[in-house]
Structure formats: C-alpha cells, structure tokens
C-alpha cells in the first residue's frame, strides 16, 4: 500500500512536472523572475548586499532584478558608471565591487542577446525577449508622463519592485489592465 502511495505521488509529481514544462515555453521567464526576487535575500550578508544594491541603484531608477541581463551586460554597465546613460553614477570602490559581484552572481544564465549581432545590451528593453514581450504595447502608453519610458517597469508592473511581473498585476496608467 505504501509503495502504491509512493508510486501515485511520483506519478502526480511527474504529471505536474510535465504540465509545468509544457507551460514553460510561454512563461518560463516569468517564473524565473517571480522566484528571483531582489527583496528576498536569505543570509544577513545577502540582505546587506541587496539593501546596498537597492539603495544605490534604486536612488535614480528602479533597482532592476539582476536576472534581466547576462553577466556581460552587467559588467559593461558597472565598468562605465562614470557615463551611465549620460550621468555620473560612480560608487565608492568597495560598494562598486560588492554590487558588481552581486549582479554577476544573479545575472541571467541565458545570454538573451542572440539576435543582437554581437552587441552587448545595456538596456533591458533592448533585449529580444523584452521586445517580444512588449510588442503590443503602444508608444503612447510608454511615453505618457506617468510612465515616461520602458525603464520604469513599476509604472505598469505593480509588483515589479518585488520581482513579480505577472500579467494580472499590470495596470497601465490611463489604460488599465492588460488582459
């Protein structure tokens, strides 16, 4: 009986796994973002690192989840902070090192730039995945003052700062839900 129970549990797990896998094609990336919340560190040291990242990078814009770009993008960003989208975003050397390591550790394992003809994306919005996911979003929705640009994830993704980008959480200012 016990064996049977184990078998049925295993079968359920397998079925569930197969279902999740089938779902992955469309939503794999979303699942990744949800499980990789910047705001959910574990050890005290991680907490301190995330707090530093959120404070320093979040001073001027949303502290984007590191999983949105591969390591080589983050390295390029961190190596050009003296001219970061035309502003000086330089950090104290120790903080710079901590943040660069944090980004490298949590960067996307997928390169995400296969269609970019060798270019290294600095903007998340340049990556083919982002472009595809936002292809139906009109220019007017993005450039309106309440949003300003694609850089402001949290203008529409209401849980973006928590690392969640589910469709049902979307509220586009002056347009509403995305469904």
């Amino acid at each position: 009986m016990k064996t049977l129970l184990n078998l049925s549990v295993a079968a359920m797990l397998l079925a569930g796994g197969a279902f999740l896998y089938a779902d992955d094609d469309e939503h794999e990336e979303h699942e990744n973002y949800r499980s990789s919340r910047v705001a959910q560190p574990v050890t005290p040291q991680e907490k301190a690192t995330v707090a530093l990242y959120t404070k320093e990078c979040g001073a001027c814009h949303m502290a984007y989840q590191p999983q949105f770009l591969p390591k080589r993008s983050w390295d390029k960003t961190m190596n050009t902070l003296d001219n970061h989208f035309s502003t000086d975003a330089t950090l104290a050397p120790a903080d710079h090192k901590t943040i660069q390591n944090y980004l490298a550790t949590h960067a996307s394992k997928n390169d995400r730039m296969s269609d970019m003809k060798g270019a290294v994306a600095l903007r998340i919005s340049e990556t083919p995945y982002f472009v595809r996911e936002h292809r139906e979003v009109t220019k007017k929705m993005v450039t309106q003052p309440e949003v300003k640009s694609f850089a402001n994830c949290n203008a529409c993704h209401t849980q973006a700062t928590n690392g969640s980008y589910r469709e049902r959480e979307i509220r586009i200012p002056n347009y509403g839900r995305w469904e």
Partner: protein
Amino acid sequence: MKYLAIVSFFSMSLMAASPEVVQYMNELSKTAKVENSSFNGFDAVRGKEIFTSTHTGKQGKPMSCTSCHTVNLANSGKNSLTGKVIDPLSPRANPQRLTSTKEVTKWLKRNFMDVYAREGSAQEKGDVLTYIMKN
C-alpha cells in the same frame, strides 16, 4: 562649561549637519585656503549661484541642480531623466541629509559632473553645502 555646551549645541543645530560632515567641511575649508589664498570661509550666496545657475552638463544640454532638486530645497524633487522622486535636500525637511560624508562626497562628485561636466573645487563644494544647510 555648561554655557559652552549649550552654545556648541546651538551652533551645531544651526549648522544642520552631522559632526562627520562638519569635519568634512573643515577639511574642504583647509583645501580651499591652499588653493585660493584669498579664501575667507564658505558663502551661502555663492552656493546658491552654484546651485541655481544653468550650465552645459554631461549630456551636452543646459542643466542646473534645480533641474532635479527644484528651487525650493524643502520640496521633493524629481530625477529629470527617470522621473524618480528625490527626497528634499534641506536638512530641516529631511533629517537624513548631510549626515554621512560618504553620501555627501558621492553625490557632490556625481552632480557636479552632471551639471558642470567637471568636479567641483573644494570652495565650490563647501559653498553649495553651506547653501543647502541654510535652506
């Protein structure tokens, strides 16, 4: 002695900066004197001019500290590029301001680069900090 303590406490609150930032300004003052023998202390009027005047910044466009911080330092500002809200600069409106030398030096360097496309001199930094303290 008690009188002295009260006076020093009073002058501290007038300064509206933490002891470490006051110490940093003393160092700026020494450097300013070395760089300019006629230097005779920081000046909030000069600081206001630094803060409110328009220059060709890092982006090659007209830029002023007030582009993001607004002219009223007790009010919140807004990052002119991203739209992110910036807490008030005035230490009276925002007690977190001018409490950390690390923060102060970081932002002075960045923002002089953004607005003036160069770093500020010791005198300019002290002047603008003096202006911020008095607002």
